[in-house]
């Protein structure tokens, strides 16, 4: 119950292809996020699944049943909006009861189910208030209850936390995840916030330009980004241009314009297409030395300290190197160094392993 | 800085008020602040083709000869009377034009003044019976209330007022509302036809009541009637010869006939409004309207007959419009004093009779 299969879904406006041949299977009880920058097609995809937008072509099946031609009000799908979309002229009780009344559920059962739904979002006692009397977070919880009360197999979330402040966002997303696990409904979650996607999702579909760039668990996406876009979107990166690369038996050897050699291990889908190598700031080591002996075949770049930012739990060092046109970002633990270790302008070496290097 | 902006706004506000006030001054015809050579006169007329004709044959030549500027205001007789009554004491109209007995009421209510016989010399040339009230403006044109009919659809030329009741016209008869002088005259005519008169109007009402089921509609204005004739919703109606002439000039197939029981007299007259500042010019205007050549030109254009003895209208015109002293004398004249006294009561009675 709640298995969603999207096959070759397309949405085209005149010459503009907003969603291109998108295919995705969401298993029962999964929470899958559609993550990407604005314009990538994630909201368009969600709206097509909801039935608010007509696809140009493609199929959407919910539990083996084709729903792409079913009108919105006949699809058994929940929907939570970014701006809550509560009915301002109805009380909270009536808002939550709305869907049940459309299904002609009898009065007593309506009352019980509404009370249960409000309880699960911790809004018992708010029945007679009106939406405008509630805070943003409370309104969103009512919106959630309104969908939950119908026990749908799948609930769609259209950036539901984007209108809330940071602390509330963090709090509510955990609640949403807990509710989802407790009730067991499938969820398709649209967001542009990568941290949110990482925390909530069983799997993430990173979208770019109407396509799914990579689909995987948060760990997979973070540790094995399949292209530079995904790598850049999730977490921080140092993406350095490469002039030439050779494929060896179990690693790639890349040559930078400035002459350095960088090694990257071969991964499942590694290919030299974008002429880039990448490593993450937290994998970098910084040594303040004038000379460095590269004994263990590590990747090394020479440069000068540009800035030092103490962030509390980490320490960010920016290194200017001829090898890279941008500042190399290194994320260090305060234990490894202190604010007095480095000074602006110091000559340093940035060192990292080929196991932590990616080639694109 | 605040003081200056407040001052500026005060100035703007007062300028606005002053502008509004000064506009009123101009419209009052207050020529004291203007060193203009032209003398000004305000005259009322009846609009449409009638007014256009009057402009051409009377107003414009007058303006030229007397170096004057004449403003023509469009007002039906009843409205004109109401207007000068409202403006009593400081009238904006100098010469008021009436067509249906309003002059009697105006004289009684002291809204108009006697003409200056030293200026209005042409009065000596008009028919005796065209002098309506001694000392006041005479009739400058006349026509008759009779029967208008569609010459294509009404095969037998109507000869009697009773023809309006003919079965073959049922549903296509035009009845004129009492707010229109012709409607009022027709009501009295109905009384006269049934042994009543201005003092005994009941037979008139009963008679009209029998005509109502034959009516296509009840109309109050000339354009409305013209429209209904054009759409052939009305094929026969009591109205005056002047507008019959007018309609046929517009291309409508409309004929006119004076019933054997008698047509009703309609005297167009102009009066000098009491309290006008342009009395001399007003009198000159009235005198001008009595000139034979003006009256002849006016007749050719509007179908209203001249009252000046020295006017000879063309043969063609003479065939279609009632003209000449003999005809004028034969038309039934009404007791306007009695009518005016009872008009309010009759109007109310009429409204109740016709409203659904």
């Amino acid at each position, binding site marked *: 119950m709640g298995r969603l299969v999207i096959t070759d879904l397309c949405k085209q406006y005149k010459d503009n292809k907003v969603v291109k041949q998108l295919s995705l299977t969401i298993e029962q009880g999964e929470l899958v996020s559609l993550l990407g920058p604005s314009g990538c097609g994630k909201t368009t995809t969600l709206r097509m699944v*909801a*039935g*608010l937008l007509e696809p140009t072509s493609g199929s959407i099946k919910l539990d083996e049943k084709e729903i792409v031609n079913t*009108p919105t*009000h*006949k699809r058994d*799908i*929940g*929907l939570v*909006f970014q701006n809550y*979309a*509560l*009915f*301002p*002229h109805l*009380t909270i009780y009536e808002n939550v009861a*709305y*869907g049940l009344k*459309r299904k002609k559920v009898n009065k007593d059962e309506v009352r019980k189910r509404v009370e249960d739904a409000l309880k699960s979002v911790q809004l018992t006692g708010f029945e007679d*208030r*009106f939406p*405008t*009397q509630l805070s943003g977070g409370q309104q969103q919880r009512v*919106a959630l209850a*309104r969908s939950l009360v*119908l026990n749908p197999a799948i609930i769609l979330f259209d950036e539901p936390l984007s209108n809330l402040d940071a602390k509330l966002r963090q709090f509510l997303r955990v609640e949403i995840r807990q509710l989802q696990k407790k009730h067991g409904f499938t969820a398709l979650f649209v967001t542009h916030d990568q941290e949110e996607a990482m925390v909530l999702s069983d799997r993430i579909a990173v979208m770019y330009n109407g396509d799914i760039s990579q689909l995987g668990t948060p760990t997979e996406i973070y540790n094995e980004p399949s292209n530079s876009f995904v790598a850049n979107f999730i977490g921080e990166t140092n993406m350095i241009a490469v002039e030439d690369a050779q494929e060896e038996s179990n690693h790639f050897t890349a040559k930078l314009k400035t002459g350095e050699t960088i090694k990257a291990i071969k991964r499942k889908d590694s290919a030299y297409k974008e002429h880039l190598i990448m490593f993450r700031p937290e994998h970098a080591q910084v040594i303040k030395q004038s000379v460095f002996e590269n004994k263990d075949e590590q990747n090394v770049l020479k440069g000068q300290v540009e800035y030092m930012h103490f962030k509390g739990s980490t320490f960010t060092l920016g290194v200017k190197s001829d090898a890279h046109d941008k500042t190399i970002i290194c994320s260090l633990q305060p234990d490894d160094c202190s604010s007095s270790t480095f000074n602006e302008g110091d000559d340093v070496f940035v060192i990292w392993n080929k196991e932590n290097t990616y080639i694109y | 800085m605040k003081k200056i*902006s*407040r001052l500026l*706004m*005060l100035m703007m*506000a007062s300028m606005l*008020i002053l502008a*509004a006030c000064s506009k009123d001054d101009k419209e009052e015809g207050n020529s004291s602040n203007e060193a203009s050579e032209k003398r000004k006169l305000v005259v009322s007329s009846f609009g449409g083709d009638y007014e256009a004709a009057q402009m051409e044959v009377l107003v414009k030549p007058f303006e030229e000869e007397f170096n004057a500027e004449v403003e023509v205001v469009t007002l039906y007789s*009843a*409205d004109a*009377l*109401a207007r000068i*009554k409202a403006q009593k004491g400081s009238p904006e109209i100098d010469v008021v034009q009436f067509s249906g007995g309003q002059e009697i009421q105006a004289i009684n209510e002291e809204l108009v003044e006697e003409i200056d016989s030293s200026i209005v010399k042409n009065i000596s040339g008009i028919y005796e019976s065209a002098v309506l009230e001694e000392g006041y403006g005479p009739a400058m044109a006349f026509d008759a209330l009779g029967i208008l009919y569609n010459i294509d659809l009404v095969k037998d030329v109507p000869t009697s007022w009773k023809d309006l009741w003919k079965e073959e016209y049922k549903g296509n008869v035009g009845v004129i*509302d*009492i*707010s229109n002088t012709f409607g009022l005259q027709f009501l009295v005519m109905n009384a006269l036809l049934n042994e009543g008169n201005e003092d005994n109007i009941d037979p008139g009402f009963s008679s009209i009541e029998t005509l109502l089921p034959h009516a*296509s*509609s*009840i*109309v*109050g204005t000339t*354009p*409305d009637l013209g*429209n*209904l004739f054009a*759409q052939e*919703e009305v094929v026969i109606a009591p109205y005056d010869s002047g507008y019959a002439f007018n309609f046929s000039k517009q291309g409508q197939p409309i004929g006119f006939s004076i019933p054997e029981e008698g047509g009703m007299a309609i005297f167009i007259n102009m009066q000098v409004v009491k309290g006008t500042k342009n009395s001399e010019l007003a009198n000159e205007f009235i005198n001008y309207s009595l000139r034979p050549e003006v009256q002849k030109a006016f007749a050719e254009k509007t179908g209203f007959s001249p009252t000046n003895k020295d006017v000879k209208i063309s043969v063609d015109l003479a065939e279609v419009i009632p003209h000449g002293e003999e005809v004028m004398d034969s038309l039934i004249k009404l007791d306007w004093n009695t009518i005016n006294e009872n*008009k*309010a009561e009759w*109007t109310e009675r009429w*409204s*109740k009779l*016709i*409203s*659904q």
Partner: protein
Amino acid sequence: MKLKLSPHWILLIPGMAMMLFFFIVPLGQIFIISFFKSQPDGAFTLENYSKFLTDSHYLKILWRTIWIGFVTSIVCLVLGYFLSYGIARAKAKYQNFLLLLVILPLLTSAVVRNFGWMVIMGKKGLINETLLALHIISSPIEILYTPLGVIIAMTHVLLPFMVLVLYPILSSMDLNIEHASENLGASPFKTFWLVTIPLSLPGIFAGTLLVFSIAISFYITPALIGGPKVPVMATEIYNQTMNLLNWSYASSIAVILLIAVLLIISIYNKMLSKVSNQGGGL
């Protein structure tokens, strides 16, 4: 002592002066005249009011005026609502053009417009010809010089007002609320009835009130299209003033009309505030 007048009060003075001299004072004069006999003796009297209120002919005129106004406002509401809804949901680039089409009647002269109607409504006019051709009627019906004709012509010119009130409300409505309703199982029709209309209720009230108050004070359209057989308050006032020169009676009719309008507006307002309160801050 400096005058402490803030600038915005000074700006109000010309407008307030105009209101006073051209509205309040004449209104007061009318009110006073209605209590005095027309010349010659000019004594204080209530006979103008008693005449109106005891004569069924005049009470019918009042009733007819209110009835025509009411029907016109309802017709304008139904037509105007669908029109506004359609325009609000049309493609953005077409909306201004469509609004212009709706407002077109207001841009034509009242007299020209009404004469056009007189031709269309005649027994040989477009309406009758069409109905006859479609065999909906077997002989021409009277539309001109009837209350029906007046209602049609007034709807034509008052519909833009209704649209101008409803359109902003419908176009600024959050579409997601309608989407939410459909998502929760309400068909588009049900959504329209349960969500769209309740949320536009203030506009509905404002629009109908606007149309109604203009309709009951209309003169030209009832005069030309209704004619002598369909007297309304405005035409009767004209009749008494211009034809019969009975200004004091005319004034009393005007006062009665004013009181009737104020009564109806206050009832409307009460109903409107009840509705607003329900929505908890619409």
